Protein backbone atom coordinates (compact mmCIF):
# COMPACT_ATOMS: atom_id res chain seq x y z
CA UNK A 1 0.00 0.00 0.00
CA UNK A 2 2.77 2.39 0.98
CA UNK A 3 4.51 2.07 -2.33
CA UNK A 4 1.30 2.68 -4.27
CA UNK A 5 0.66 5.79 -2.21
CA UNK A 6 4.14 7.21 -2.73
CA UNK A 7 3.99 6.46 -6.46
CA UNK A 8 0.72 8.36 -6.76
CA UNK A 9 2.16 11.21 -4.68
CA UNK A 10 5.17 11.60 -6.94
CA UNK A 11 3.04 11.15 -10.04
CA UNK A 12 0.84 14.01 -8.88
CA UNK A 13 3.84 16.27 -8.23
CA UNK A 14 5.16 15.67 -11.74
CA UNK A 15 1.62 16.03 -13.10
CA UNK A 16 1.85 19.77 -12.43
CA UNK A 17 5.04 19.83 -14.48
CA UNK A 18 3.37 17.74 -17.18
CA UNK A 19 0.48 20.22 -17.39
CA UNK A 20 3.05 22.93 -18.09
CA UNK A 21 4.77 20.80 -20.72
CA UNK A 22 1.35 20.08 -22.25
CA UNK A 23 0.91 23.83 -22.90
CA UNK A 24 4.25 24.23 -24.63
CA UNK A 25 4.54 20.90 -26.42
CA UNK A 26 0.94 20.12 -27.41
CA UNK A 27 -0.76 23.52 -27.55
CA UNK A 28 2.05 25.85 -28.63
CA UNK A 29 4.00 23.19 -30.52
CA UNK A 30 7.13 24.55 -28.84
CA UNK A 31 9.78 22.10 -27.54
CA UNK A 32 10.66 24.02 -24.39
CA UNK A 33 13.91 22.80 -22.84
CA UNK A 34 13.99 25.55 -20.21
CA UNK A 35 11.85 23.16 -18.12
CA UNK A 36 15.04 21.36 -16.98
CA UNK A 37 16.05 24.47 -15.06
CA UNK A 38 12.74 26.11 -14.19
CA UNK A 39 11.86 22.96 -12.20
CA UNK A 40 14.88 23.37 -9.89
CA UNK A 41 14.31 27.15 -9.97
CA UNK A 42 11.00 26.65 -8.19
CA UNK A 43 12.74 24.37 -5.71
CA UNK A 44 15.58 26.83 -5.13
CA UNK A 45 13.17 29.70 -4.46
CA UNK A 46 11.25 27.46 -2.07
CA UNK A 47 14.27 26.18 -0.13
CA UNK A 48 15.70 29.68 0.27
CA UNK A 49 12.39 31.17 1.37
CA UNK A 50 11.77 28.39 3.88
CA UNK A 51 15.28 28.52 5.36
CA UNK A 52 14.70 32.24 5.83
CA UNK A 53 11.65 31.49 7.90
CA UNK A 54 8.91 32.33 5.43
CA UNK A 55 5.58 30.52 5.40
CA UNK A 56 5.50 27.43 3.15
CA UNK A 57 2.31 28.62 1.46
CA UNK A 58 4.04 31.81 0.30
CA UNK A 59 6.53 29.74 -1.66
CA UNK A 60 3.82 28.58 -4.08
CA UNK A 61 3.03 31.97 -5.66
CA UNK A 62 6.67 33.07 -5.35
CA UNK A 63 8.06 30.12 -7.28
CA UNK A 64 5.28 30.41 -9.86
CA UNK A 65 6.25 34.03 -10.40
CA UNK A 66 9.92 33.09 -10.78
CA UNK A 67 9.01 30.35 -13.26
CA UNK A 68 6.75 32.68 -15.22
CA UNK A 69 9.56 35.22 -15.53
CA UNK A 70 11.98 32.56 -16.76
CA UNK A 71 9.39 31.26 -19.24
CA UNK A 72 8.74 34.77 -20.49
CA UNK A 73 12.48 35.19 -21.07
CA UNK A 74 12.50 32.02 -23.20
CA UNK A 75 9.57 33.48 -25.16
CA UNK A 76 11.17 36.89 -25.59
CA UNK A 77 14.42 35.35 -26.79
CA UNK A 78 12.47 33.29 -29.31
CA UNK A 79 10.02 35.94 -30.48
CA UNK A 80 11.98 39.18 -30.25
CA UNK A 81 15.50 37.93 -30.99
CA UNK A 82 14.24 35.40 -33.54
CA UNK A 83 16.20 32.53 -32.01
CA UNK A 84 15.06 28.98 -32.86
CA UNK A 85 12.63 27.53 -30.28
CA UNK A 86 14.96 24.73 -29.14
CA UNK A 87 17.91 27.07 -28.81
CA UNK A 88 16.06 29.73 -26.82
CA UNK A 89 15.10 27.00 -24.35
CA UNK A 90 18.71 25.85 -24.20
CA UNK A 91 19.93 29.41 -23.58
CA UNK A 92 17.58 29.88 -20.64
CA UNK A 93 18.31 26.38 -19.32
CA UNK A 94 22.06 27.09 -19.39
CA UNK A 95 21.85 30.52 -17.83
CA UNK A 96 19.41 29.54 -15.13
CA UNK A 97 21.75 26.83 -13.87
CA UNK A 98 24.07 29.47 -12.37
CA UNK A 99 21.14 31.62 -11.32
CA UNK A 100 19.57 28.67 -9.49
CA UNK A 101 22.79 28.23 -7.50
CA UNK A 102 22.68 31.94 -6.62
CA UNK A 103 19.04 31.69 -5.58
CA UNK A 104 19.89 28.69 -3.39
CA UNK A 105 22.49 30.79 -1.54
CA UNK A 106 25.39 29.37 -3.58
CA UNK A 107 24.62 25.85 -2.41
CA UNK A 108 24.16 22.88 -4.72
CA UNK A 109 22.20 21.11 -2.01
CA UNK A 110 20.02 22.95 0.47
CA UNK A 111 18.12 20.81 3.00
CA UNK A 112 15.00 22.03 4.78
CA UNK A 113 14.62 19.15 7.25
CA UNK A 114 13.09 20.18 10.53
CA UNK A 115 11.14 23.15 9.22
CA UNK A 116 7.45 23.40 8.41
CA UNK A 117 6.48 22.47 4.87
CA UNK A 118 3.29 22.09 2.91
CA UNK A 119 3.18 18.44 3.99
CA UNK A 120 4.48 18.67 7.54
CA UNK A 121 3.18 21.49 9.69
CA UNK A 122 1.10 22.12 12.80
CA UNK A 123 -2.07 21.35 10.90
CA UNK A 124 -1.03 17.94 9.53
CA UNK A 125 0.53 16.99 12.88
CA UNK A 126 -2.86 17.50 14.54
CA UNK A 127 -4.51 14.98 12.21
CA UNK A 128 -5.35 11.53 13.62
CA UNK A 129 -2.85 8.84 12.59
CA UNK A 130 -5.21 7.06 10.21
CA UNK A 131 -5.70 10.22 8.16
CA UNK A 132 -2.17 11.56 8.50
CA UNK A 133 -0.78 8.92 6.09
CA UNK A 134 -3.09 10.22 3.40
CA UNK A 135 -2.49 13.91 4.08
CA UNK A 136 0.24 14.36 1.43
CA UNK A 137 -1.72 12.61 -1.30
CA UNK A 138 -4.87 14.61 -0.47
CA UNK A 139 -3.00 17.92 -0.42
CA UNK A 140 -1.39 17.05 -3.75
CA UNK A 141 -4.65 15.91 -5.26
CA UNK A 142 -6.32 19.18 -4.27
CA UNK A 143 -3.44 21.16 -5.74
CA UNK A 144 -3.38 19.21 -9.01
CA UNK A 145 -7.16 19.38 -9.45
CA UNK A 146 -7.01 23.12 -8.81
CA UNK A 147 -4.26 23.53 -11.44
CA UNK A 148 -6.18 21.38 -13.90
CA UNK A 149 -9.46 23.24 -13.41
CA UNK A 150 -7.74 26.61 -13.74
CA UNK A 151 -6.14 25.44 -16.95
CA UNK A 152 -9.42 24.07 -18.34
CA UNK A 153 -11.07 27.38 -17.54
CA UNK A 154 -8.22 29.38 -19.05
CA UNK A 155 -8.19 27.40 -22.29
CA UNK A 156 -11.87 28.28 -22.78
CA UNK A 157 -11.29 32.02 -22.34
CA UNK A 158 -10.46 34.36 -25.20
CA UNK A 159 -6.78 34.32 -24.25
CA UNK A 160 -6.83 30.53 -24.10
CA UNK A 161 -8.45 30.34 -27.50
CA UNK A 162 -5.71 32.55 -28.95
CA UNK A 163 -3.10 30.33 -27.30
CA UNK A 164 -4.51 27.26 -29.00
CA UNK A 165 -4.75 29.10 -32.28
CA UNK A 166 -1.07 30.14 -32.20
CA UNK A 167 -0.01 26.51 -32.11
CA UNK A 168 -2.58 25.19 -34.57
CA UNK A 169 -2.95 27.91 -37.12
CA UNK A 170 -0.98 31.13 -36.61
CA UNK A 171 -2.73 32.83 -39.55
CA UNK A 172 -5.99 32.90 -37.61
CA UNK A 173 -4.27 34.91 -34.89
CA UNK A 174 -2.86 37.37 -37.38
CA UNK A 175 -6.27 37.61 -39.08
CA UNK A 176 -7.75 38.57 -35.71
CA UNK A 177 -5.21 41.40 -35.61
CA UNK A 178 -3.50 39.89 -32.56
CA UNK A 179 0.23 39.66 -31.93
CA UNK A 180 1.03 35.93 -32.09
CA UNK A 181 4.43 36.55 -30.50
CA UNK A 182 2.92 38.03 -27.36
CA UNK A 183 0.56 35.05 -27.07
CA UNK A 184 3.53 32.68 -27.31
CA UNK A 185 5.44 34.56 -24.60
CA UNK A 186 2.34 34.42 -22.44
CA UNK A 187 1.96 30.68 -22.99
CA UNK A 188 5.59 29.98 -22.12
CA UNK A 189 5.24 32.06 -18.95
CA UNK A 190 2.17 30.11 -17.82
CA UNK A 191 3.79 26.78 -18.68
CA UNK A 192 6.96 27.51 -16.74
CA UNK A 193 5.02 28.91 -13.82
CA UNK A 194 3.43 25.46 -13.54
CA UNK A 195 6.81 23.75 -13.91
CA UNK A 196 8.33 25.89 -11.16
CA UNK A 197 5.31 25.20 -8.97
CA UNK A 198 5.96 21.51 -9.46
CA UNK A 199 9.59 22.07 -8.41
CA UNK A 200 8.41 24.00 -5.37
CA UNK A 201 6.12 21.17 -4.29
CA UNK A 202 8.83 18.55 -4.98
CA UNK A 203 11.30 20.47 -2.83
CA UNK A 204 8.86 20.51 0.10
CA UNK A 205 8.02 16.85 -0.45
CA UNK A 206 11.63 15.61 -0.47
CA UNK A 207 12.66 18.38 1.93
CA UNK A 208 15.81 19.43 0.15
CA UNK A 209 16.84 21.34 -2.92
CA UNK A 210 19.41 19.70 -5.17
CA UNK A 211 20.74 21.44 -8.27
CA UNK A 212 20.65 18.23 -10.29
CA UNK A 213 16.96 17.54 -9.57
CA UNK A 214 15.94 19.14 -12.88
CA UNK A 215 18.04 16.84 -15.03
CA UNK A 216 15.64 14.96 -17.24
CA UNK A 217 12.56 16.88 -16.05
CA UNK A 218 11.59 17.61 -19.65
CA UNK A 219 11.82 13.90 -20.46
CA UNK A 220 9.42 13.04 -17.63
CA UNK A 221 7.09 15.85 -18.75
CA UNK A 222 7.08 14.81 -22.39
CA UNK A 223 6.64 11.13 -21.59
CA UNK A 224 3.72 11.89 -19.27
CA UNK A 225 2.02 14.08 -21.88
CA UNK A 226 2.49 11.54 -24.66
CA UNK A 227 1.48 8.51 -22.57
CA UNK A 228 -1.59 10.37 -21.29
CA UNK A 229 -2.82 11.85 -24.54
CA UNK A 230 -2.12 8.75 -26.63
CA UNK A 231 -3.68 6.30 -24.25
CA UNK A 232 -6.91 8.24 -23.74
CA UNK A 233 -7.33 9.68 -27.22
CA UNK A 234 -10.67 7.95 -27.75
CA UNK A 235 -12.18 8.69 -24.38
CA UNK A 236 -13.90 11.93 -25.28
CA UNK A 237 -15.28 12.46 -21.78
CA UNK A 238 -11.72 12.71 -20.46
CA UNK A 239 -10.18 16.12 -21.00
CA UNK A 240 -6.60 16.24 -22.28
CA UNK A 241 -5.53 17.86 -19.02
CA UNK A 242 -6.89 14.92 -16.99
CA UNK A 243 -5.22 12.50 -19.41
CA UNK A 244 -1.88 14.25 -18.81
CA UNK A 245 -2.29 13.94 -15.03
CA UNK A 246 -3.02 10.22 -15.36
CA UNK A 247 -0.11 9.92 -17.80
CA UNK A 248 2.24 11.31 -15.19
CA UNK A 249 1.04 8.83 -12.56
CA UNK A 250 1.43 6.00 -15.09
CA UNK A 251 4.98 7.16 -15.84
CA UNK A 252 5.91 6.97 -12.17
CA UNK A 253 4.12 3.62 -11.90
CA UNK A 254 6.29 2.23 -14.72
CA UNK A 255 9.42 3.27 -12.83
CA UNK A 256 8.02 1.84 -9.60
CA UNK A 257 7.25 -1.48 -11.27
CA UNK A 258 10.70 -1.58 -12.83
CA UNK A 259 12.20 -0.88 -9.42
CA UNK A 260 10.26 -3.57 -7.59
CA UNK A 261 13.03 -6.12 -7.30
CA UNK A 262 11.23 -9.08 -8.88
CA UNK A 263 11.48 -7.76 -12.42
CA UNK A 264 15.10 -6.75 -12.33
CA UNK A 265 17.81 -9.32 -13.02
CA UNK A 266 20.26 -6.61 -11.94
CA UNK A 267 19.73 -3.09 -10.55
CA UNK A 268 21.55 -1.76 -13.62
CA UNK A 269 18.68 -2.94 -15.83
CA UNK A 270 16.16 -0.58 -14.23
CA UNK A 271 16.07 1.96 -17.06
CA UNK A 272 15.77 -0.74 -19.71
CA UNK A 273 12.78 -2.31 -17.97
CA UNK A 274 11.21 1.15 -17.60
CA UNK A 275 11.65 1.73 -21.34
CA UNK A 276 10.03 -1.63 -22.17
CA UNK A 277 7.07 -0.77 -19.92
CA UNK A 278 6.56 2.57 -21.72
CA UNK A 279 6.63 0.80 -25.04
CA UNK A 280 4.08 -1.73 -23.78
CA UNK A 281 1.70 1.01 -22.63
CA UNK A 282 1.92 2.85 -25.93
CA UNK A 283 1.57 -0.35 -27.96
CA UNK A 284 -1.45 -1.43 -25.91
CA UNK A 285 -3.05 1.96 -26.55
CA UNK A 286 -2.51 1.41 -30.28
CA UNK A 287 -4.04 -2.09 -30.24
CA UNK A 288 -7.06 -0.84 -28.33
CA UNK A 289 -7.57 2.01 -30.80
CA UNK A 290 -7.52 -0.41 -33.75
CA UNK A 291 -10.12 -2.55 -32.04
CA UNK A 292 -12.35 0.48 -31.45
CA UNK A 293 -12.03 1.35 -35.14
CA UNK A 294 -12.84 -2.22 -36.21
CA UNK A 295 -16.03 -2.14 -34.17
CA UNK A 296 -17.12 1.22 -35.53
Amino acid at each position, binding site marked *: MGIVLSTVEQGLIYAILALGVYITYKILDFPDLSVDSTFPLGAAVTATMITNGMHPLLTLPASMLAGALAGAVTGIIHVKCRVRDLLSGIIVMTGLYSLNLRVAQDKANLPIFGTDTLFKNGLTAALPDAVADYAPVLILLALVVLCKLCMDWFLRTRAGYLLRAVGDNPTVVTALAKDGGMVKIQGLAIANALVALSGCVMCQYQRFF*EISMGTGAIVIGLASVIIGTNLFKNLSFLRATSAVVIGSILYKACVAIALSSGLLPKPQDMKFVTAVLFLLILALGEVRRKKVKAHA
Partner: protein
Amino acid sequence: MKKLLCILTALTMVLTAGLALAEGETYRIGIAQFAEHGSLDNCREGFLAGLAENGFVEGENLEVDYQNAQADMGIANQIAQGMASGDLDLICAIATPIAQACFNAADGTDIPTIYTAVTDPVAAMLATEDGTATGNVTGTSDKLPIEAQLKMIRSLMPEATKIGILYSTSEVNSESAIAEYQALAPDYGFEIVVSGISATADIPLALDALLPQVDCLSNLTDNTVVSSLPLLLDKAGEAGKPVFGSEVEQVKLGCAASEGLDYFALGKQTGAMAARVLSGEAAADIPYEVISESSLYVNYDALAAVGIELPEDQAARAIDVSTL
Protein backbone atom coordinates in the same frame (compact mmCIF):
# COMPACT_ATOMS: atom_id res chain seq x y z
CA MET B 1 3.42 -34.35 -16.10
CA LYS B 2 3.43 -36.62 -13.07
CA LYS B 3 7.19 -36.74 -13.12
CA LEU B 4 7.35 -32.96 -13.21
CA LEU B 5 5.03 -32.73 -10.24
CA CYS B 6 7.19 -35.19 -8.36
CA ILE B 7 10.30 -33.18 -9.05
CA LEU B 8 8.57 -29.99 -8.02
CA THR B 9 7.35 -31.49 -4.77
CA ALA B 10 10.80 -32.81 -4.01
CA LEU B 11 12.34 -29.42 -4.75
CA THR B 12 9.86 -27.66 -2.50
CA MET B 13 10.63 -30.08 0.31
CA VAL B 14 14.36 -29.58 -0.03
CA LEU B 15 13.89 -25.80 -0.05
CA THR B 16 11.67 -25.77 3.03
CA ALA B 17 14.12 -28.01 4.83
CA GLY B 18 16.94 -25.65 3.89
CA LEU B 19 14.99 -22.67 5.18
CA ALA B 20 14.16 -24.42 8.41
CA LEU B 21 17.86 -25.16 8.93
CA ALA B 22 18.78 -21.49 8.82
CA GLU B 23 18.46 -20.73 12.49
CA GLY B 24 17.17 -17.59 14.12
CA GLU B 25 15.83 -14.39 12.69
CA THR B 26 16.40 -13.19 9.15
CA TYR B 27 17.02 -9.48 8.68
CA ARG B 28 16.00 -7.54 5.60
CA ILE B 29 17.89 -4.43 4.63
CA GLY B 30 17.77 -2.10 1.65
CA ILE B 31 20.84 -0.56 0.02
CA ALA B 32 20.09 2.59 -1.95
CA GLN B 33 23.06 3.77 -3.98
CA PHE B 34 22.99 7.09 -5.85
CA ALA B 35 25.11 6.22 -8.87
CA GLU B 36 27.31 3.59 -10.46
CA HIS B 37 30.76 4.67 -9.43
CA GLY B 38 33.93 2.84 -8.34
CA SER B 39 34.18 4.40 -4.87
CA LEU B 40 30.49 3.99 -4.13
CA ASP B 41 30.60 0.36 -5.27
CA ASN B 42 33.56 -0.19 -2.90
CA CYS B 43 31.48 1.38 -0.14
CA ARG B 44 28.66 -1.05 -0.78
CA GLU B 45 30.93 -4.09 -0.82
CA GLY B 46 32.66 -2.87 2.33
CA PHE B 47 29.30 -2.35 3.98
CA LEU B 48 28.27 -5.95 3.37
CA ALA B 49 31.69 -7.15 4.55
CA GLY B 50 31.32 -5.09 7.72
CA LEU B 51 27.92 -6.61 8.37
CA ALA B 52 29.23 -10.12 7.70
CA GLU B 53 32.09 -9.63 10.16
CA ASN B 54 29.49 -8.90 12.80
CA GLY B 55 27.40 -11.95 12.09
CA PHE B 56 24.96 -10.62 9.50
CA VAL B 57 25.78 -12.60 6.40
CA GLU B 58 24.00 -12.02 3.10
CA GLY B 59 22.18 -15.18 2.05
CA GLU B 60 22.29 -16.65 5.55
CA ASN B 61 20.47 -14.39 7.95
CA LEU B 62 20.45 -11.25 5.83
CA GLU B 63 18.33 -10.39 2.81
CA VAL B 64 19.57 -7.46 0.76
CA ASP B 65 17.48 -5.38 -1.62
CA TYR B 66 20.00 -3.34 -3.62
CA GLN B 67 18.82 -0.47 -5.85
CA ASN B 68 20.78 2.07 -7.83
CA ALA B 69 19.32 5.47 -8.83
CA GLN B 70 21.77 5.89 -11.71
CA ALA B 71 22.32 9.53 -10.70
CA ASP B 72 18.67 10.43 -11.31
CA MET B 73 17.11 12.46 -8.47
CA GLY B 74 13.54 11.51 -9.40
CA ILE B 75 14.41 7.83 -9.25
CA ALA B 76 16.40 8.32 -6.05
CA ASN B 77 13.19 9.58 -4.46
CA GLN B 78 11.18 6.66 -5.73
CA ILE B 79 13.73 4.17 -4.45
CA ALA B 80 13.74 5.89 -1.06
CA GLN B 81 9.95 5.96 -0.82
CA GLY B 82 9.69 2.35 -1.96
CA MET B 83 12.18 1.15 0.63
CA ALA B 84 10.58 3.19 3.41
CA SER B 85 7.18 1.69 2.66
CA GLY B 86 8.50 -1.89 2.85
CA ASP B 87 9.11 -3.89 6.00
CA LEU B 88 12.87 -3.42 6.05
CA ASP B 89 14.95 -3.48 9.21
CA LEU B 90 17.34 -0.85 7.95
CA ILE B 91 18.16 1.29 4.90
CA CYS B 92 21.76 1.91 3.89
CA ALA B 93 22.05 5.03 1.71
CA ILE B 94 25.23 5.63 -0.27
CA ALA B 95 26.01 9.29 -1.23
CA THR B 96 24.43 12.56 -0.08
CA PRO B 97 21.31 13.14 -2.22
CA ILE B 98 19.94 9.64 -1.74
CA ALA B 99 20.82 9.72 1.95
CA GLN B 100 18.63 12.82 2.29
CA ALA B 101 15.88 11.21 0.23
CA CYS B 102 15.94 8.05 2.39
CA PHE B 103 16.04 10.04 5.62
CA ASN B 104 13.03 12.04 4.41
CA ALA B 105 11.11 8.98 3.25
CA ALA B 106 11.79 6.94 6.40
CA ASP B 107 10.77 9.81 8.65
CA GLY B 108 7.61 8.70 10.41
CA THR B 109 8.44 5.00 10.03
CA ASP B 110 10.64 3.06 12.44
CA ILE B 111 13.21 2.16 9.76
CA PRO B 112 16.64 3.60 10.58
CA THR B 113 18.77 5.13 7.81
CA ILE B 114 22.52 4.43 7.84
CA TYR B 115 24.41 6.60 5.37
CA THR B 116 27.91 6.49 4.00
CA ALA B 117 29.96 8.57 1.55
CA VAL B 118 28.31 11.77 2.81
CA THR B 119 31.06 14.37 3.01
CA ASP B 120 29.34 16.84 5.28
CA PRO B 121 26.46 15.31 7.28
CA VAL B 122 25.98 18.61 9.15
CA ALA B 123 25.47 20.65 5.96
CA ALA B 124 23.19 17.91 4.65
CA MET B 125 21.16 18.21 7.89
CA LEU B 126 21.66 14.53 8.70
CA ALA B 127 23.50 15.49 11.89
CA THR B 128 23.69 18.53 14.12
CA GLU B 129 26.81 20.59 14.87
CA ASP B 130 27.67 18.52 17.95
CA GLY B 131 27.59 15.26 15.98
CA THR B 132 24.25 13.96 17.23
CA ALA B 133 21.66 12.75 14.75
CA THR B 134 18.73 14.80 13.53
CA GLY B 135 16.49 11.73 13.62
CA ASN B 136 16.59 7.97 13.27
CA VAL B 137 19.78 8.25 11.23
CA THR B 138 23.54 7.88 11.50
CA GLY B 139 26.46 6.91 9.30
CA THR B 140 29.95 7.70 8.13
CA SER B 141 31.45 10.68 6.38
CA ASP B 142 34.01 10.51 3.58
CA LYS B 143 35.54 13.87 4.33
CA LEU B 144 38.76 14.26 2.37
CA PRO B 145 42.05 14.31 4.31
CA ILE B 146 42.92 17.66 2.73
CA GLU B 147 45.68 18.71 5.09
CA ALA B 148 47.51 15.42 4.56
CA GLN B 149 47.13 15.84 0.79
CA LEU B 150 48.63 19.36 0.87
CA LYS B 151 51.52 18.12 3.03
CA MET B 152 52.15 15.29 0.57
CA ILE B 153 52.12 17.58 -2.48
CA ARG B 154 54.53 19.96 -0.73
CA SER B 155 57.01 17.18 -0.01
CA LEU B 156 56.80 15.84 -3.56
CA MET B 157 56.95 19.23 -5.30
CA PRO B 158 59.00 21.62 -3.12
CA GLU B 159 58.99 24.34 -5.82
CA ALA B 160 55.30 24.32 -6.67
CA THR B 161 53.13 27.31 -5.82
CA LYS B 162 49.82 26.79 -7.54
CA ILE B 163 47.44 23.84 -7.32
CA GLY B 164 44.59 23.65 -9.79
CA ILE B 165 41.28 22.09 -8.84
CA LEU B 166 38.52 21.27 -11.28
CA TYR B 167 35.08 20.81 -9.73
CA SER B 168 31.45 20.77 -10.71
CA THR B 169 29.31 23.53 -9.28
CA SER B 170 26.46 21.09 -8.80
CA GLU B 171 28.15 19.06 -6.08
CA VAL B 172 27.85 20.32 -2.56
CA ASN B 173 30.66 18.04 -1.37
CA SER B 174 33.08 19.71 -3.76
CA GLU B 175 32.19 23.17 -2.51
CA SER B 176 32.99 22.36 1.10
CA ALA B 177 36.21 20.59 0.08
CA ILE B 178 37.34 23.63 -1.91
CA ALA B 179 36.60 25.95 0.99
CA GLU B 180 38.84 23.79 3.16
CA TYR B 181 41.58 23.66 0.50
CA GLN B 182 41.56 27.44 0.27
CA ALA B 183 41.69 27.84 4.03
CA LEU B 184 44.61 25.42 4.47
CA ALA B 185 46.68 26.10 1.32
CA PRO B 186 48.50 29.24 2.58
CA ASP B 187 49.89 27.22 5.55
CA TYR B 188 51.79 25.09 3.02
CA GLY B 189 52.68 27.97 0.71
CA PHE B 190 50.16 27.09 -1.99
CA GLU B 191 47.63 29.06 -3.91
CA ILE B 192 44.49 27.26 -5.09
CA VAL B 193 43.19 27.99 -8.59
CA VAL B 194 39.69 26.61 -9.10
CA SER B 195 37.67 26.09 -12.23
CA GLY B 196 33.96 25.29 -11.98
CA ILE B 197 32.14 23.25 -14.59
CA SER B 198 28.51 22.23 -14.88
CA ALA B 199 28.73 19.18 -17.16
CA THR B 200 31.19 16.62 -18.48
CA ALA B 201 31.22 18.44 -21.81
CA ASP B 202 32.82 21.52 -20.19
CA ILE B 203 35.87 19.61 -18.97
CA PRO B 204 38.20 19.87 -22.00
CA LEU B 205 37.78 23.65 -22.30
CA ALA B 206 38.09 24.19 -18.57
CA LEU B 207 41.31 22.12 -18.51
CA ASP B 208 42.85 24.02 -21.42
CA ALA B 209 42.31 27.24 -19.51
CA LEU B 210 43.37 25.89 -16.12
CA LEU B 211 46.49 23.84 -16.88
CA PRO B 212 48.81 26.68 -18.03
CA GLN B 213 48.12 28.56 -14.78
CA VAL B 214 49.07 25.82 -12.34
CA ASP B 215 51.93 23.51 -11.32
CA CYS B 216 49.77 20.48 -10.66
CA LEU B 217 46.19 19.36 -10.33
CA SER B 218 44.55 17.90 -7.27
CA ASN B 219 41.24 16.06 -7.49
CA LEU B 220 38.28 16.05 -5.20
CA THR B 221 35.73 13.24 -4.99
CA ASP B 222 33.69 15.21 -7.52
CA ASN B 223 31.63 12.63 -9.40
CA THR B 224 31.48 14.52 -12.70
CA VAL B 225 35.22 15.18 -12.80
CA VAL B 226 36.19 11.71 -11.59
CA SER B 227 34.02 10.12 -14.28
CA SER B 228 36.14 11.94 -16.87
CA LEU B 229 39.45 11.14 -15.23
CA PRO B 230 41.09 9.55 -18.33
CA LEU B 231 40.52 12.78 -20.27
CA LEU B 232 41.88 14.85 -17.41
CA LEU B 233 44.99 12.63 -17.16
CA ASP B 234 45.53 12.87 -20.92
CA LYS B 235 45.42 16.65 -20.97
CA ALA B 236 47.59 17.02 -17.86
CA GLY B 237 50.04 14.48 -19.28
CA GLU B 238 50.39 16.52 -22.47
CA ALA B 239 51.11 19.59 -20.37
CA GLY B 240 53.62 17.59 -18.26
CA LYS B 241 51.81 18.38 -15.01
CA PRO B 242 51.13 15.80 -12.31
CA VAL B 243 47.62 15.00 -11.14
CA PHE B 244 47.04 14.07 -7.51
CA GLY B 245 44.01 11.93 -6.82
CA SER B 246 41.67 11.90 -3.88
CA GLU B 247 41.42 8.15 -3.44
CA VAL B 248 43.02 4.89 -4.44
CA GLU B 249 40.84 4.15 -7.50
CA GLN B 250 42.05 7.37 -9.12
CA VAL B 251 45.69 6.45 -8.54
CA LYS B 252 45.06 3.06 -10.14
CA LEU B 253 43.72 4.90 -13.19
CA GLY B 254 46.92 6.95 -13.49
CA CYS B 255 47.03 9.76 -10.93
CA ALA B 256 50.54 10.25 -9.53
CA ALA B 257 49.69 9.87 -5.86
CA SER B 258 46.98 10.43 -3.31
CA GLU B 259 46.47 10.79 0.39
CA GLY B 260 43.30 8.87 0.19
CA LEU B 261 40.48 7.19 1.90
CA ASP B 262 39.87 3.52 1.52
CA TYR B 263 36.20 3.39 0.59
CA PHE B 264 36.03 -0.32 1.27
CA ALA B 265 37.21 0.38 4.85
CA LEU B 266 34.70 3.22 5.09
CA GLY B 267 31.92 0.88 4.02
CA LYS B 268 33.13 -1.72 6.51
CA GLN B 269 33.02 0.81 9.33
CA THR B 270 29.48 1.69 8.23
CA GLY B 271 28.57 -2.00 8.16
CA ALA B 272 29.76 -2.37 11.74
CA MET B 273 27.50 0.56 12.73
CA ALA B 274 24.61 -1.05 10.90
CA ALA B 275 25.24 -4.28 12.79
CA ARG B 276 24.95 -2.38 16.08
CA VAL B 277 21.63 -0.94 14.92
CA LEU B 278 20.34 -4.34 13.80
CA SER B 279 21.30 -5.74 17.21
CA GLY B 280 18.99 -3.25 18.86
CA GLU B 281 20.89 -0.02 19.42
CA ALA B 282 19.08 3.15 18.33
CA ALA B 283 20.64 4.83 15.31
CA ALA B 284 19.96 8.22 16.88
CA ASP B 285 22.24 7.31 19.82
CA ILE B 286 25.25 6.55 17.62
CA PRO B 287 27.14 9.69 16.52
CA TYR B 288 28.31 9.79 12.91
CA GLU B 289 31.88 8.74 12.27
CA VAL B 290 34.67 10.10 10.09
CA ILE B 291 37.63 8.08 8.88
CA SER B 292 40.55 10.07 10.19
CA GLU B 293 43.71 8.33 9.04
CA SER B 294 44.62 8.35 5.37
CA SER B 295 47.11 6.28 3.44
CA LEU B 296 49.51 7.37 0.72
CA TYR B 297 48.81 5.59 -2.54
CA VAL B 298 51.43 5.94 -5.25
CA ASN B 299 51.57 5.17 -8.94
CA TYR B 300 55.31 4.99 -9.65
CA ASP B 301 54.86 5.00 -13.44
CA ALA B 302 52.83 8.20 -13.33
CA LEU B 303 55.35 9.83 -10.98
CA ALA B 304 58.22 8.92 -13.27
CA ALA B 305 56.36 10.33 -16.27
CA VAL B 306 56.40 13.80 -14.72
CA GLY B 307 59.91 13.37 -13.33
CA ILE B 308 59.10 13.28 -9.63
CA GLU B 309 60.95 11.07 -7.20
CA LEU B 310 59.32 10.00 -4.00
CA PRO B 311 61.22 11.36 -0.93
CA GLU B 312 62.48 8.58 1.31
CA ASP B 313 60.29 9.35 4.31
CA GLN B 314 57.23 9.14 2.09
CA ALA B 315 58.43 6.05 0.23
CA ALA B 316 58.50 4.13 3.49
CA ARG B 317 54.75 4.45 4.04
CA ALA B 318 53.66 4.57 0.39
CA ILE B 319 51.42 1.84 -0.95
CA ASP B 320 52.27 0.95 -4.53
CA VAL B 321 48.99 0.62 -6.43
CA SER B 322 50.52 -1.58 -9.10
CA THR B 323 50.78 -4.30 -6.45
CA LEU B 324 47.15 -3.88 -5.34
